[in-house]
């Protein structure tokens, strides 16, 4: 048994090394003093970080990304939460079908959605506006909200709400004072995930972006397609640090496991030990 354990350990840490390698490489390569991206970096300096403010297009794109992500995250939560409520709390004809319908954008390749949205929004005349980006991102973010809120609703005891109603609360009061606080972690996780998915998206934004409404990941993508100099390495490593900060905040507040729905799966095994 011991021999197998150590094989597993060595193998796993090698794989974790493989997973972290490109991220570590970006962080180190961004510190280069040379004119070209290389690894190991040639000399150490922060000159490429100081170069970023001279390229305002990256900051403009970061701003657009943040605005689009927050707006789509909020709207997706506002749309997905009532949908999840209807799908989990009520039994009606076509419920299963509708559940599948709301989750279906997740099965659809993002590029296909991008192509379809570009063609349709051009016809509707809203391409090259931030509105197009928000509309596109709603399609890929609402499913996550529906899934996460449904999961937390399904784990909630419906008799609690009934108890509130029996004790004389109005349906609205029972909802806002009992149900909503109980599903709040699911709603927060859904909102957080929707915002992250919107912020990270390239495949859809690439089709809908115009020079004035280019999100940061799209800006980086098109930049890398041309050339990869240390400037973009520095931008990428800032993005990694930003994500790391977000990961820490999420882990401390809701827990990453809940975000990915692995929490429940992990507990029975943990309990059996």
């Amino acid at each position, binding site marked *: *048994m011991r021999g*197998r354990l150590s094989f*597993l350990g060595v*193998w*796993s840490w090698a*794989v974790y090394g*493989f*997973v972290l*390698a*490109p*991220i570590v*490489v*970006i962080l180190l*390569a961004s510190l280069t003093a040379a004119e*070209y*991206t*290389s*690894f190991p970096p040639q000399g150490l300096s922060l000159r490429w970080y100081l170069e970023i403010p001279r390229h305002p297009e990256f900051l403009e794109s970061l701003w657009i990304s943040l605005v689009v992500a927050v707006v789509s995250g909020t709207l997706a939560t506002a*749309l*997905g939460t*009532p*949908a999840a409520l*209807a799908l989990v709390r*009520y039994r*009606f004809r076509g*419920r299963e079908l*509708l559940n599948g319908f*709301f989750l279906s954008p997740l099965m659809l*390749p993002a590029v*296909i*959605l*991008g*192509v379809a*949205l*570009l*063609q*349709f929004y051009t*016809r509707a005349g809203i391409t090259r506006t931030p509105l197009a980006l928000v509309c596109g991102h*709603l*399609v890929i973010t*609402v499913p996550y909200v529906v899934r996460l809120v449904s999961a937390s609703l399904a784990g909630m005891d419906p008799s609690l709400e009934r108890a509130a*109603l029996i004790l004389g609360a109005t349906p609205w009061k029972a909802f806002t004072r009992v149900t909503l606080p109980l599903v709040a972690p699911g709603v927060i996780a859904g909102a957080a995930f929707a915002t*992250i998915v919107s912020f990270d998206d*390239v*495949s859809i934004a*690439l089709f809908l972006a115009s020079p004035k409404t280019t999100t940061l*990941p799209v800006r*980086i993508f098109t930049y*890398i397609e041309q050339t*990869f100099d240390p400037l973009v390495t520095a931008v*990428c490593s800032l993005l990694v640090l930003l*994500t790391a900060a*977000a*990961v820490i905040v999420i882990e401390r507040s809701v827990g*990453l*496991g809940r*975000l*990915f729905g*692995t929490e429940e799966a*992990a507990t029975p095994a943990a309990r059996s030990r």
Partner: protein
Amino acid sequence: MSRPATPWLLLAVPLAVFGALFVLPLANMLLLSLQTFDRTTGATGGLTLNNYGKFLGDPFYLGILGRTLKLAALATCVTLVLGYPVAFHLHLSTGRRRAYLTLLVLAPLLISVVVRSFGWLVILGPNGLVNSTLRGAGVISEPLRLLYTESAIVLGLTHVFLSFMVLSIATALGRIDPAVVRAAQILGANPVQTFLRVILPLSLPGVAAGSLIVFTLSMSAFITPALLGGPRVKVMSYLAYQQTLLLSDWPYGSAIAFVLLALTAVSVLLYLRALERGRFRMVFR
């Protein structure tokens, strides 16, 4: 609380928004894929299957389709081989250690795919980690061309989708009743037998689900193949992007998108059928 109209009140707005933003664009794309490309007006004319005929009749395009399938299958196999032991290791760990390992598996999912694929550009590039090391060791004098190859794409896809495989297998391992494992040990099975005859078969639903996720994501992945393969090693998603955005041939781009969609759906169905008929079909019920 349960007046029959209530769920529809809750669903009205989300349904209307999804109908307008999701269903209409897809219907529009289907219509476009059946039209003819016209340089001045975009798409014109009556409905025709010419775009699909053009794709299916051309060995060049069929080659890209075959490559997409091959790279997705390879990425799935590599993630499975790399990921199974990691999932098992994660499953055996406990307490805080388990929490940290889970974080290590999950956190990369939150870092932008562009950034993660870019990391591989730096590693595999002409002045990258691999070429610098090999040149420093005197193995090579000229940098090897590692980027813009099929291997680079498989490597990148493996890296981006590995977490899904690990999570899926770890979940299945967590569902195995520990009493079954103990029963095997009490009945005299050695650790290898216990693993091969009990744990491995019972974890197959996780393997199947993970493979399915990684395969479909790899088939339709765009950023990783676009950055690590580029125009030199095209896959279906890149072809759809190129036709639509770079060449503005919307009808043909739409047809390619639908071919990719149909191909993914057919592979998933065939795979599920194979599982239902396979030797371990009872664990999938």
